[in-house]
């Protein structure tokens, strides 16, 4: 057993038994949010780390998932297994609308359209007051319910969040260790050669984008149930900043690196108690520094 496997095993053991020796509600709250970020981070990792595409659409899927899951829970009261699945489906549809036209054209178009879509969805959430109540947001989101059992206590939430994080890790592993995963890396590494090998770069990227959208949307749905209140801010750009830092500094194109990034960059801002503007400013400086001094890190 290598050192890294041992470390991973220890981390897993701690993660599984954390509520037994940590009772502070505050720390458990942070841990639950970290779990949600662990799902989100794999979403960006698939597109940025493994496909080498800069996507600014994470908040689009996150927010889409949040709103769809919330509206289904509030209006129809369905089981969360169903609402989260439908949220994932909504994410995939969004990915097709964004990705199909833009990936066919060029990577420039792709980056632009991912940003534009995120901004547009925020505008729609603000203006479509009949459905989303605009800036008032949607409060009193019920707890998630699976086969009649609700997730209410903080400890239950902790394990739910941990399960989601592990599920996202497993799903990502399935994808990247398959032929599709190999194709993704090939297209990222040398697109011309991939084409000459008969790999459809467009289809490969679109599939990965949709897969990542499903994960992002599920993260959004879970987040909505946890925070019990959402507003158009879920489409905000700060999610993108944070995810970029987590993935790029954690290790893009690896399975566990971004998870470490998620842990560090959820805990650190809490410990340092930074004002949001200050935190964003620092993230901006870090990203600029990475681009200037470690550019090869940006794309695996």
């Amino acid at each position, binding site marked *: 057993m290598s050192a890294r496997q041992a470390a991973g095993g220890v981390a897993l053991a701690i993660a599984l038994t954390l509520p037994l020796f940590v009772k502070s509600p505050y720390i458990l709250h942070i841990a639950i949010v970290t779990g949600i970020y662990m799902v989100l981070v794999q979403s960006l990792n698939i597109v940025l780390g493994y496909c080498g595409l800069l996507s600014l659409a994470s908040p689009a899927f996150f927010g889409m998932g949040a709103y769809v899951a919330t509206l289904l829970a509030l209006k129809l009261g369905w089981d969360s297994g169903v609402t989260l699945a439908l949220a994932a489906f909504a994410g995939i549809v969004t990915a097709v609308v964004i990705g199909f036209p833009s990936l066919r054209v060029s990577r420039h178009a792709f980056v632009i359209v991912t940003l534009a879509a995120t901004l547009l969805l925020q505008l729609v959430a603000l203006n479509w007051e009949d459905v989303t109540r605009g800036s008032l947001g949607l409060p009193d989101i019920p707890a998630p319910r699976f086969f009649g059992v609700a997730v209410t206590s903080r400890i239950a939430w902790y394990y739910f969040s941990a399960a989601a994080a592990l599920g996202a890790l497993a799903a990502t592993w*399935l*994808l990247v*260790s*398959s*032929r*599709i995963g*190999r*194709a993704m*890396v*090939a297209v*990222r*590494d*040398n697109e*011309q*050669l*991939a*084409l*000459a*090998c*008969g*790999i*459809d*770069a467009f*289809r*490969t990227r679109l*599939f990965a984008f949709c*897969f990542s959208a499903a994960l992002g949307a599920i993260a959004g749905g879970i987040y909505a149930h946890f925070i019990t209140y959402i507003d158009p801010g879920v489409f905000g750009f700060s999610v993108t900043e944070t995810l970029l830092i987590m993935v790029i500094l954690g290790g893009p194109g690896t399975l566990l690196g971004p998870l470490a990034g998620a842990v560090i960059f959820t805990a650190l801002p809490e410990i340092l108690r930074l004002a949001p503007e200050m935190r964003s400013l620092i993230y901006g400086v870090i990203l600029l520094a990475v681009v200037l001094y470690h550019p090869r890190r940006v794309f*695996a």
Partner: protein
Amino acid sequence: MTLLAVRELTKRYAGITALDAVSLEVREGSITGLIGPNGSGKSTLFDCVSGFQQRDAGTVSLGSRELGGLSPVEVTRAGVRRTFQQLKVFAALSVVDNLLVSAQAAPAYSALAEALHLPATRRHERRMRERAHQILDELRLAPHAGALAGALSYGQKKLVELGMALMSEPKILLLDEPVAGVNPALIAELREQLVRMPRRGVTLFIVEHNLKLVFDICDWIYVLDRGRLLAGGPPAEVAKDERLMQAYLGHG
């Protein structure tokens, strides 16, 4: 029997005619060579045949199938495989994975089935892996199977490139300068692999500057000069053709 037929192929860039009504044929089961000085349009011809560039006029057909207008992916799936003048391998993938990725031209299963690792896809993957290891054994690359392709020497990468081409079992293989920059020992090894291809069912169409190799292994040789086809015939005839000398010496 003609496998690849190029008729009146023309390609123009801003003011320059890279290919001028070039017509040639590659017979099935042959090793056909394409030679000519730098800038004569050889790589452009490959690009037009393989879909990486669109032709301005003329036709390209593989058997009865018209290749003009197809994308590179479609051309590859039709059975045409090409290498590039500049050596290309997937540096971030292992040698074995390079070969496996090469065999993905015809996706056997849907993307979702692959992502879920359904049993049928796993069996298919095992079979592919076995074949890849067989090819690596033949090329004597087996010890490097798990190494990242980017870490290999130039000569070893050339062998990986060849392995990738073999793995894909194309009907015709367009090789763009397969022995450029390679040491003589490796050239001999590559030569052995190349002459065996037709027996494996792969027709070869080779662009090369190494005239010794070309005249050694080719059944038929075409000469291109400044976008025009100068000569075409068995090596003995082409060697005697004065225009060949002119083409090469005339450019210094």
